[in-house]
């Protein structure tokens, strides 16, 4: 069974958005601190990781179908196993 095309497309969009947010400069005032000790440049990336966690949950849900482990295939005979190197 395969993942649905819409699910894979949605995952693709999510991934692109996250990568763009990772590459762009960190927004906000770098002198801010979160909880009194976390510099904003670090806190921003913690928030980014929270978003990444949501994307991973989606990836392992709709975009990744359940399936049984595949069966071992018998070796091919020399007539069947052509190669190029």
């Amino acid at each position, binding site marked *: 069974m395969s993942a649905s095309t819409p699910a894979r497309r949605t995952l693709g969009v999510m991934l692109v958005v996250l990568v763009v947010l990772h590459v762009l400069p960190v927004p906000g005032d770098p002198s801010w601190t979160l909880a009194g000790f976390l*510099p904003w*440049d*670090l806190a*921003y990336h913690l928030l980014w990781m929270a978003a990444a966690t949501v994307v991973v949950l989606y*990836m392992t849900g709709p975009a990744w179908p359940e399936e049984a482990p595949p069966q071992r295939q018998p070796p091919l005979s020399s007539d069947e196993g*052509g190669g*190029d190197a």
Partner: protein
Amino acid sequence: MSLPMTLLTVCLVYLAVVAVIGAVAYRRTGSSSEEYFLGGRTARTVVVFMALLGTNVTPFVIMGIPGLAYHHGVGVFGLNAAIVALGIPWTFYMIGWPAWKAARRVGALTPAELFAERLASPGLGVVLFIAFVVYTLPYLVTSVLGVGIAVSVLTRDAVSFELAAALILVVTIAYTATGGMKATMWTNVFQGSVFLGLMVVAFFGVAEGLGGFSAATEAVRQAAPELLTKGDRPPFAPGAWASWGLAISLTVIAFPHMLVRIFAARDVAALKNTCRLYPPILVLLWLPAVMFGVWGAAAIPGLEGRASDQIFPLLVQAHLEPVLQGVALAGVLAAVMSTIDAQFLTLGSMLSRDVVRRLAPDIEDRHEVAWGRAFVLLLAVATYGVVLWRPASIFDIATFSFSGYVMLVPTMMGALHWRRTTAVGAIASIVAGNAVLLLTMARDQPLGGLLPVAWGLAAAIVALVAGSLLSRPPRRAVIDRAMGPVEPSGAP
């Protein structure tokens, strides 16, 4: 009890637990190659996750990252931790999952064997074997370097760097060679728990010792405020930032010792759960690691160059009780052993499967396993030699290895997703990628603002496509045997 005796006692307890787990695993391991090298492909979620995490986490995280953050500040977190929280699960999905299926279909025990079968090319298996050895040996060195530094600092040189490195190699080889994959995976569950617990306990302990979280950060604001912002230092320039993110995201799945642990998974659920656990656990590891370096810059200033690799053990020594210092040492040992056991086992299995079995197809399983064990011993000696040489900092050595592994990713992606991929294309990709990587590494300044890994990856992709289109693909039966019949959706 004196400090050295306390440290020794805690470490002996740790080593005793590891030995017991290894012995139990040995008694439950069958004699076949699949049992020894992959644990019979029966690992469930907790074991798969902890084995992958234990293999993935090395002194690069516990020692190298604090050392890097000491010089470059909080930007190190975004540069490394954030992107791999997404990159590692994504590559498990895109490469790990189809590779797991293909390995089961063709009965492959090693990554090189899998791709050699998929592309019907024993020659590709040898090329991959060479590439994996060349890039895994330096990575092995970073692990042993880390433990040598930690032990010598924490014991105040009562145990020398050289002795610590030798001891860790001997103990790890003992349980790896006897118990195989099952021993390494089971011990990794315990070892992962130890270093995860260490990082959390040390985070709170060191912060308390520095006067609390806010006071520790405030001290940095007074002494080195530039470390509290990402700024525009060279590692964080846009091109370097993007290309390093690419490298560190793609490299993990190309570690042969990671891929074989994926092969050992019992089912898809174990792989999915592993992906789900990765991001939150990475926060637990990397947030303390980066803050140790940043806080350490104010608390223990003046460490130059690779001397900053010592900042974590120095903080532990200054701010934690003796028993916790022992736990810290055990945690570093755990991080090291849980990685090098997998690396040794995987390299041993590749020699047996990808070289010896090719030369002697009728070899018995027990002889194949014996070859693997002999190669493990040889590698341990080579590793020790490079550790004594100690050519660069932990981070620099890891960068070399990580970049090299990335050159193998186009071959993996192509072989698992593009049926037109050929062995000629794969070999061209590996050769071209590494050639461009080495040429760009030799430059004093980054080419076009990008790290060498980006140029090498581009060359590897172009060579894979061109080489594949210009050569004859394997027969359809070969492709179907590894990938299954074509599905209308084109899913992996």
